[in-house]
Each structure stands twice: as C-alpha cells, then as structure tokens.
C-alpha cells in the first residue's frame, strides 16, 4: 500500500487537503495511506513515505529535503490545487509522480 505524506509548517492546512484526498482515493478504490505532518516531523516521516508532497508555502524546503533524501519523490503541490482544497487533483498528482 502506498504511503503518501503531506508536509506544511504546522500540518494544519495540509490536513484539510488530506481528508479530501482520502475521499478521492475511496471514490477511486485506490488503496493508500495519506497523512499530514508538520515540517518538524519531516526527518521521522519521510523515510517511510512513498511520496512526499509539500504545501506550496514550504516549497522552499524541497531542495534541502531532496538533498537529504535523494531516493524519495519530493514535490510541491500545485498552488491552485492546494488553494481549492482539490483532493482529487492532489491525489492525481501524487499517483502520476509515483508511476513515473
């Protein structure tokens, strides 16, 4: 089962998106585990993740995290998708990136 990890500063605004992503996953019958974490938890959650999605407000962390975890897929969520709390769009982005 794929593990999708979302990260923002306090894990609050990403948690809004997480519930919408879970709904989208359920509707698609796509089995996965989606969770949101604050940036402080990054070192403990990233090693277990299949993909790490960053809130656009912390996309400045992506280079640093990519250096620290070169084998992981780490990317920022599209701004519009994030703003409209578009769970379907965010899940689609995650699946697309994992398939590549």
């Amino acid at each position, binding site marked *: 089962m794929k593990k999708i990890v979302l990260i*923002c500063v306090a894990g609050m*605004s990403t948690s809004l998106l997480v519930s919408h992503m879970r709904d989208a996953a359920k509707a698609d019958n796509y089995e996965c585990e989606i969770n949101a974490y604050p940036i402080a938890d990054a070192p403990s959650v990233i090693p277990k993740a299949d993909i790490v999605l960053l809130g*656009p*407000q912390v996309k400045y962390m992506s280079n640093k995290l990519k250096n620290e975890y070169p084998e992981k897929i780490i990317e920022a969520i599209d701004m519009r998708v994030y*703003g*409209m*709390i578009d769970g379907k769009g965010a899940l689609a982005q995650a699946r697309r990136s994992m398939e590549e």
Partner: protein
Amino acid sequence: METQAKKTVLERSTDFIEQKIAPPLLRLSQVRYLEALQRTFITLMPYMVLGATATLILNLSGLFAAETGLNMPGVAKAIDSVITPCRPWLVQIVFVTINLLAMIAAMLNGYFLGDHYNKKDSNVTAIASSVVAVIAFLCFIDFSQLSANFDWPAYILGSPSLFGGLLISIFAVEIYRLLIGRKITIKMPEAVPPMIASAFTSMIPVCAVIILCTLIGQGLGDFDFLSILNKATAYLVVGGSGPIAQGIGFVLDRVLWFVGLHGSNIVSSVMQPVWTTMITDNINAFAAHQEIPYMFTEQWINFYVRCSVFPIALLCTMSKVKRFKVLGKLSLPGTIFNIAEPVMYGLPIVLNPLMFVPWVLGFAGLYVFNVILGVIGITPPVVAMTVWTMPTPLASFIGSGFNIIAPIITLMNIAIIFFMFLPFFKVMEKQVLKEEEQYEAELGREK
C-alpha cells in the same frame, strides 16, 4: 522568429523577490543554529502557552480589584476564593515552564544541534549533545545563590538567561563535536567491545567542555559571565523590539507570502529568540504587577494587525463568481482558526497583481495605524500567549489579560481588512465574470 514577450511589472517584481529577497532569507533560516533554534521553540511552545495561561489565571482577580482594575471588588473576591486553593498548583506549573525556560531551551537547542551533526559524524549523538549543553549552561549558575534567589519572575534559569543559555549550548556542542571529530578521545584496545568503547569516546570531550565552562562561569571571581551576557542581550532585544524593526519583519512576511512562501515561518526563524524574550518579559512583568515593557510583540502583530484572512473568505462567500463562492465555503471555517492557505492559493492572493496593493501596501498601512494606537496607549499590550489557532478577537482578549478594548481593536482591524480588500476584490470579480460570460458565449456559438 518570435520576439520574447516583454515581462510585465508583476513578473519582474516577482522574479526580483524570488531571486533576490527570498534566497538570502531562506539561506539564513537554514543556518544550522537558526534551524536548531526553530525546532527548539516549536518544542517549547506548548509549555510556554501552559505557563502563560497559569500566570494569567493567578492574576485574574487583579483585573477586578478596587484600585487597579475594573473596580468590582465583589467579583475579585469571588475569583480569589476559587483560585486560592489552586494557587500552589498554578505556581508550580509556572515554575516548571516559564521559570525554567532558559535551561530547557539550552537542552533542546543542544539536542537539535547534535541531531544536525549526527548526520555528518555518527559519533556525535543528539542526546549526548543535549546533556553536555544543559550541564554546560548550569556551569554558569551559582548554585550557592540559586535556592536563595528562587524568586519568580526574575529567576536565573528563566527568560533573563534565554539568550545566554542558547549561546552557551551552541558553544558547548561546538567544542564537544570538534573534539570528537578530531578524535581527541580515549581509544580502547581492539579487544574491547564497541559498546563499552563508545562509552569512553565522550570522556575527554565532556570533561573539556564542563571544566572550561565552569572556569568561565565560576572561576573568574566577581566577573559574572552570565549576567554580563544577559545584560548585553537585553540591549539586543530592545533593539529588535521597536516598531520599525518589527515593521520590517512584518512587511517581509507579507512580501514572502505574496510570492507563495510561508513568510511568517521564514521571518520567525530569525526573530524568534527576540520575540520569546519579549513575551516572557511581558508575562513576568504582568505577574509581578509591574509596567509591561513591550508593546510591539509578536503576539501584538498576530492578534491586532495580522488577524486572519477571514474577511477575504467572507468576501468570497458573498461573491457572484461560482469558483469564489465554493472557495469561500471551503475556507471560511479554517480562516476563523487562522488557517490562510486556501484563500492565499485559491483566490489567489499569491502572485495576483491586483491583490498586491491590499496585501502588502494595505497591511503595511494597517501596521502603521496600529503602531500609532500602541504608541498613544490605546492598545492594551499582550501579556499572555495562546495557541496560534485561537480566533484572533478571542486571542487578543485573553492575551491582553481580559481587557475588553483588545477584542474591539481586533474586530475593528478585521473590519478595516474587509474594506481594504473590498474594492480590489470587486475589480477581480468583474474580470472573472467577464471571462465567464465570454466563455459561455463561445460555448453558445459552438452549439
């Protein structure tokens, strides 16, 4: 061949912010010491909120006292009768949180710095760094005086020594990891099991750090290193606490948010030690019934000026544009609890030239207006901390020590924000409606 499209003013200014302003700030916030500091304060936060709340409850009756407060001695007496039995518990909570702030900060800072070095040198561990940092800090404390001066709120292990504690913890961990890195350690013969050998590795580095810190902290006669350090940092806090320094920080915060980066988080990584000292000094002064030293605290910005993007979400819910209406419904509950991202990216405010005016210039104006309110003494200073998701009128009410003027000012500012964005929102709405009409007209033609 097509000529490259000329860059608009917005694109050029965005490029400027993304390439010139943001990178040095980001690099600064990723300096290992500031990164460790950030993690330290994130970990400290719940304890500080708890300690501040306990202080607030302890002083609740003072608000209704005859001379200093609302002149309702009956209420004050009633509150006192409830609080007095709980007093020992509340005082204990203040002691173990706010009064040990510097010690716990030194410990955490040592831990996170050690965690950073652990990635480069596995012989340096976070927990060993944490212990050496906190003990190095305690080397500077005169224990023969400690119990005699167990007074609150100027306690030496609390906020007066915050900067000193952080600096000493950095000093200790640096020496510790340098000695380990240079292999200035006790080497065991090959036959000794690694578990036992590693226990001896830190012997020399730890001794070196602790002896050195003891000599500096206690060995110099009347020269009290920590209190000199504390005095020096007090100047630093005063320098960083004025409305101009805070204003620069706040405008940077807005500008960074405008390009879609978490401005508050980036700015706070630099300002946090100053901010924490300011609010704890306020909490302590409040507890001791002294004059409150700082008006322009981080909480003052958050509770009075920044407020939340609630008014913008409200504008969205009233919009004729369907997309805005949906966004408004989605984001309104979050904005009450200060979650701004959906509005920032959904409307969007980020990189939206129209919104630059109210978001950066408007908020800068609101800041200046509130500085004036603060300087002439209308705004009650913040003397307590709350969790950041607390709705701002409530936060300012609690934060000011239950002063009814505080939420009035916050609500007024929220109304100002509403009218600040209203004209620009209407222009944007018109543009979008026009686009939608055109789009529908085109659809109609295709049919």
